[in-house]
């Protein structure tokens, strides 16, 4: 059960929304479900051996809100979870997921969340994912989310991922296959500090006419942290893709961007933009001329960038 303040704080970090407002939810703590709710339109079915969930959204379900938070407070735990989202025809849902790790001890804690999305024709999903780590121990907090998406005709999905604090190592892999007229919009924001490492890898395959994708990555790497962004977009048909990777580096932070676009059809229109560098001096000067100190100006620029 939700017994202590640590649980509450972790939940609050990854899921600031009120749980009771959700139409369906499942809270997983240290590898076990501690609370679950469904409704006639959204069914959450546990898989065997606690290995995850099947979430079924009935066709034509409108404005369903689903919360799937995971918290880990046990040091030395590796939690692997498979959650499969089956989104029915023309259904429209918002899914909030995320993982909070609290590790005060010296063993590493890891959460590998494998989320698979099956979007039927005309369905719409907004997927918000938040990652957060805290704790005073030397044990590392690792998160390795894998997202696999299959999108049928005219479906659309928006993914917002945010990782702003405390995660020592994250490897994030997202793959998507898009059919005719479907749209995938991905925005990820990552801030790394200390010696943290974050890697993201997108592979999007556009197979149907007029499929489109927009991938925006904003990263801030400070101290001695390291981030790597790689994207591979394949256009097999008349389609459109836009990938934008912006990075701010500070101190000894480093960001590597590996763009790959493969236009495999004469009407495939694929664009990749990447810009990495320190905060522009002129931006600092402008905000200082409004009375902000250099430190305040820097914080305001980074806040805006990751907003």
């Amino acid at each position, binding site marked *: 059960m939700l017994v202590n303040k640590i649980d509450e704080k972790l939940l609050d970090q990854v899921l600031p929304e009120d749980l009771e407002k959700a139409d369906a939810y499942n809270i997983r703590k240290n590898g076990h479900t501690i609370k679950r709710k469904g409704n006639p339109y959204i069914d959450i079915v546990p898989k065997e051996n606690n290995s995850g969930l099947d979430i079924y959204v009935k066709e034509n379900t409108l404005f369903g809100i689903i919360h799937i938070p995971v918290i880990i407070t046990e040091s030395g735990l590796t939690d692997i979870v498979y959650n499969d989202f089956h989104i029915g025809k023309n259904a429209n849902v918002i899914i909030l997921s995320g993982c909070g790790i609290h590790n005060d001890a010296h063993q590493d804690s890891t959460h590998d969340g494998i989320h698979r999305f099956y979007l039927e024709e005309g369905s719409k999903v907004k997927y918000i994912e938040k990652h957060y780590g805290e704790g005073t121990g030397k044990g590392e907090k690792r998160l390795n989310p894998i997202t696999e998406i299959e999108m049928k005709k005219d479906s659309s999905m928006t993914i917002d991922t945010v990782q702003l604090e405390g995660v020592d190592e994250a490897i994030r892999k997202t793959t998507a296959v898009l059919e005719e007229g479907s749209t995938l919009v991905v925005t990820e924001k990552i801030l790394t500090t200390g010696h943290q490492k974050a890697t993201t890898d997108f592979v999007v395959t556009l197979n149907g006419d007029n499929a489109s994708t927009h991938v925006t990555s904003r990263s801030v790497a400070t101290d001695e942290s390291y981030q790597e962004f790689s994207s591979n977009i394949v256009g097999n048909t008349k389609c459109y893709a836009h990938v934008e990777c912006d990075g701010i580096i500070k101190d000894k932070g480093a960001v590597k961007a590996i763009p790959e676009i493969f236009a495999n059809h004469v009407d495939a229109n694929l664009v990749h933009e990447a810009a990495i560098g320190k905060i522009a001096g002129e931006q600092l000067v402008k905000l200082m001329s409004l*009375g902000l*100190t*250099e430190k305040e*100006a820097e914080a305001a620029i980074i806040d*805006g960038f990751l907003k």
Partner: protein
Amino acid sequence: MLELKDICFERDHKKILDHINLIFDSKKFYVITGPNGSGKSTLVKIIMGIEKPDSGQIILDGEDITGLSIDERAKLGFGFAFQQPVCFKGITVYDLLNMATGKKLKREEACEFLSQVGLCTHDYVNREINRSLSGGERKRIEIASVIARNPHIAIFDEPEAGIDLWSFQNLTEVFKQIEKRSRGITIVISHQERIIRIADEIILMDSGKIQKQGPRKELIGTILSNSKCPRGVNACEQNR
């Protein structure tokens, strides 16, 4: 009173400012004009603290402020509208106005600043300050951010550039508001005859030096027919 004493600034063996001495009195509107590369922008950047002079002093009401940083000068009441407004990523017009005023503005308050530069709050307040805004829009937002600070010493580096459609009436109104404040020094770099014509004092710069300085009435004739500018300020004006 703002005083520049013997300001020198040199880069790449070129004297950009060569022993500049100037006094700016309260309640006055100054226009600095002169050909490109004459040192106008560098001079105002030195006043704001964006550039540091190699030698010389800046004195505000008897106090030496030469060593103060940009933000310290901003807190003393200096405001600066950049010639080329800066682009950001993720910072909105509303964010910028909040930073300028140091508080969370109500929508009506933001509206007041934006309407002074001829922009509708509804259309702009949530826009990000990036290249999706036109040069003219960014320029007006830049001026709005300076107005929002209630500056006592307001510096505008070529405010007219790129705002053709915005009436000069609005711009001159902005200058009048600033003049009402206690120190009320307005310094504008401009080549525009219409702005030069509302100046109290004109400062003409050339090759890093003050060529002429004095009340508008005395100087305006020579300024507008100045042959130093290959085409003359008049010619520029006619071609607009």
